[in-house]
């Protein structure tokens, strides 16, 4: 492969471009109208417009993206995550156009992308599954019919989009009364996010953890599992903090779980990167949940504890290389890594999206810190896409060390112009239960619920006084008539004046 088109945007497009650069491969970015000046467009060697802002008119347009790849002379396509990453038609369209799709085959995507078919594969591989519907429930299935199936499974249960992922089109349903509304909302989200509103039901395992196993499979029959990721920290079924390894997985469980994951993948001759998600209950029993047939958002924590560049390996596998990694070292994490997904959401307003222009940005640095981001000063957190600003990852010799570095990095992070979830993480990183590793998938929602809307982050009396002083001095030293007008000039004036006063 000499040139790869990245069929995505934001931080993951930047991440893939970086891997390509490391490998000496040219890159082609695609962009919707509002992404014209985005970082991924500027870092790529070439760039193609693919349509207006709504995803269906740009990042979900198979025809436009395949045409862009063909016209630009790309020989490979990396789908990132989200958008078309788990769309079998896209993988097939790439293949039909003579492009190498950097991911599994369309057949594997179809099979494992259907939650119900994936369950069958897990059962064939001898891996336990959570009780639930065997067949997808199409849009046409009536509420009454769904209610009847639900009764058979029992409440509480999970409503999930067959094509889903990332918490979209997913709802927890506590009782029959909640089902119709939840079904409508989940179907609508699923239709908008994946173009497919088919649903399935699954019993909710209480007080469980969400643990997942990263896999790489080459085209020569080798499938290698990696040390697990702990993904239980979710808000409304959306992962927000991940870590590796998990405190809840002793080495015996790690052996069994990673072997189970590899067995499922081998059953379907899986190739390239994929992830098997498990529920782990309080007795240490794990259940196959689903397979994500793509790179995960949280892949960097695996990279930090194993030293493996997963994106580079995706590309190497796609061009036919053999997996030469040492299987044992992939299961022996070095230190501990944690990721916080920083979103443009306002924790003080119930995590309401807070789109807008990023007027200032200071990104943390130093030992053990990695920031994967597509944000830049002057850029927008657009309303059309996932409001992620950054994946902040820290590594430490131990879990407390990694968490201490995360606290340090969050304190250095500054995003101005939009509200972010940084205050939420600062609060979480002081929570005793979290620090002790006592949590399950319901942890965040319970903790937030218990706060009853009390602000996560109240300014101390001292901080309030400092704010008063800063506001006063800024006014004294910068009597700017039109604040937005002359930043550059008044900067020097302000500097000169304050210098003169010293």
């Amino acid at each position, binding site marked *: 492969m000499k040139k790869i088109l990245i069929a995505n945007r934001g931080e993951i497009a930047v991440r893939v471009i970086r891997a390509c650069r490391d490998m000496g491969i040219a890159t082609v970015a695609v962009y919707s109208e509002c992404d014209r000046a985005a970082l991924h467009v500027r870092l790529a060697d070439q760039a193609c417009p693919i349509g207006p802002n709504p995803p269906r008119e740009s990042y979900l347009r198979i025809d436009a993206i395949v045409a862009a790849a063909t016209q630009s002379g790309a020989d490979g396509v990396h789908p990132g995550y989200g958008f078309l990453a788990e769309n079998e038609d896209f993988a097939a369209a790439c293949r039909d156009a003579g492009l190498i799709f950097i991911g599994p085959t369309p057949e594997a995507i179809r099979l494992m992308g259907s939650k119900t078919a994936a369950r069958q594969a897990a059962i064939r591989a001898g891996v336990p599954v959570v009780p639930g519907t065997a067949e997808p429930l199409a849009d046409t299935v009536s509420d009454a019919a769904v209610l009847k199936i639900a009764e058979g499974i029992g409440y509480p249960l999970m409503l999930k989009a067959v094509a889903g992922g990332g918490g979209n089109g997913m709802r927890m349903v506590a009782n029959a009364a909640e089902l119709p509304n939840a079904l409508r909302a989940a179907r609508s989200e699923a239709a908008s996010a994946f173009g497919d509103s088919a649903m399935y039901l699954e019993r909710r395992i209480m007080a469980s953890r969400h643990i997942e196993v990263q896999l790489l499979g080459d085209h020569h029959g080798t499938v290698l599992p990696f040390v697990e990721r702990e993904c239980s920290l979710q808000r409304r079924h959306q992962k927000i903090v991940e870590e590796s390894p998990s405190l809840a997985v002793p080495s015996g469980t790690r052996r069994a779980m990673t072997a189970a994951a590899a067995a499922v993948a081998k059953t379907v001759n899986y190739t390239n990167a994929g992830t098997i998600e498990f529920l782990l209950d309080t007795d240490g029993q794990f259940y196959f949940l689903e397979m994500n047939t793509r790179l995960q958002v949280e892949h960097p924590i695996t990279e930090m504890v194993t030293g493996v560049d997963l994106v580079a390996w995706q590309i190497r596998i796609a061009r036919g290389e053999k997996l030469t990694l040492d299987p044992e070292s992939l299961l022996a994490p070095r230190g501990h890594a944690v990721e916080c997904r920083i979103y443009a959401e306002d924790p003080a307003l119930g995590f*309401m999206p807070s789109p*807008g222009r990023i*007027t200032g940005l200071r990104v943390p640095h130093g030992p053990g810190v990695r920031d994967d981001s597509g944000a830049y000063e002057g850029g927008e957190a657009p*309303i059309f*896409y996932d409001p992620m600003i950054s994946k902040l990852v820290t590594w430490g010799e131990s879990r407390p060390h990694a968490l201490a570095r995360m606290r340090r990095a969050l304190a250095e992070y500054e995003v101005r112009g939009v509200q972010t979830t940084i205050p939420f993480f600062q609060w979480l990183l002081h929570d005793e239960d979290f620090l002790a590793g006592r949590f399950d998938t319901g942890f965040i929602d319970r903790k937030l619920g218990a706060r009853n809307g009390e602000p996560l982050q109240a*300014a101390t009396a001292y901080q309030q006084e400092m704010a008063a002083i800063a506001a006063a001095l800024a006014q004294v030293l910068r009597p700017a008539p039109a*604040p937005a007008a002359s930043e550059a000039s008044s*900067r020097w004036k302000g500097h000169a004046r304050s210098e003169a006063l010293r």
Partner: protein
Amino acid sequence: MKLQFDIADRLRTVEVTRDGHGFRVLVDGVPRLIDVVRVHGNIWSLLVRDHGESTARSVEAVVASQAGVDTVDVHIDGVSIPVLMRNGLGRRSRDSVSAKGTGPQRILAPMPGKVVRILVKPGDQVQTRQGLIVVEAMKMENELRAARDGRVREVFVVEGQSVESGTPLVVVE
């Protein structure tokens, strides 16, 4: 110079006088010596000495103002603190956070997006935390709820309508 601010619903009086290399500042009568320098743009570095202290504390403050708005957002240690200038002529920001209090609740769009569902009509009785309207933005549906019991007085939008941040959606009284 004497300035008055409202911070967290409390009036703060700040007196600033030059003092040698820096400023002497009284906040509600409490004196401090401040050495201040503008770092870049709206980033300021304060070195703050309380009365009797020999070593200054280092405080970095971002003072973000907007034209025509009397509230400046001051960021300190990653905490965002809205500071309302008294006697200012502009409008207050963060009107959307008018959920608390006793007057009518004006539900404003907290971000640009599309109205996907309206769950109430004028005249409806609503209870605390009851859903009023659903706005979709950034792939997520966001249900806006009533902060207190009340009656819907007005609905300003229709389903499918695109709204800007701050657009009035519903009034509950």
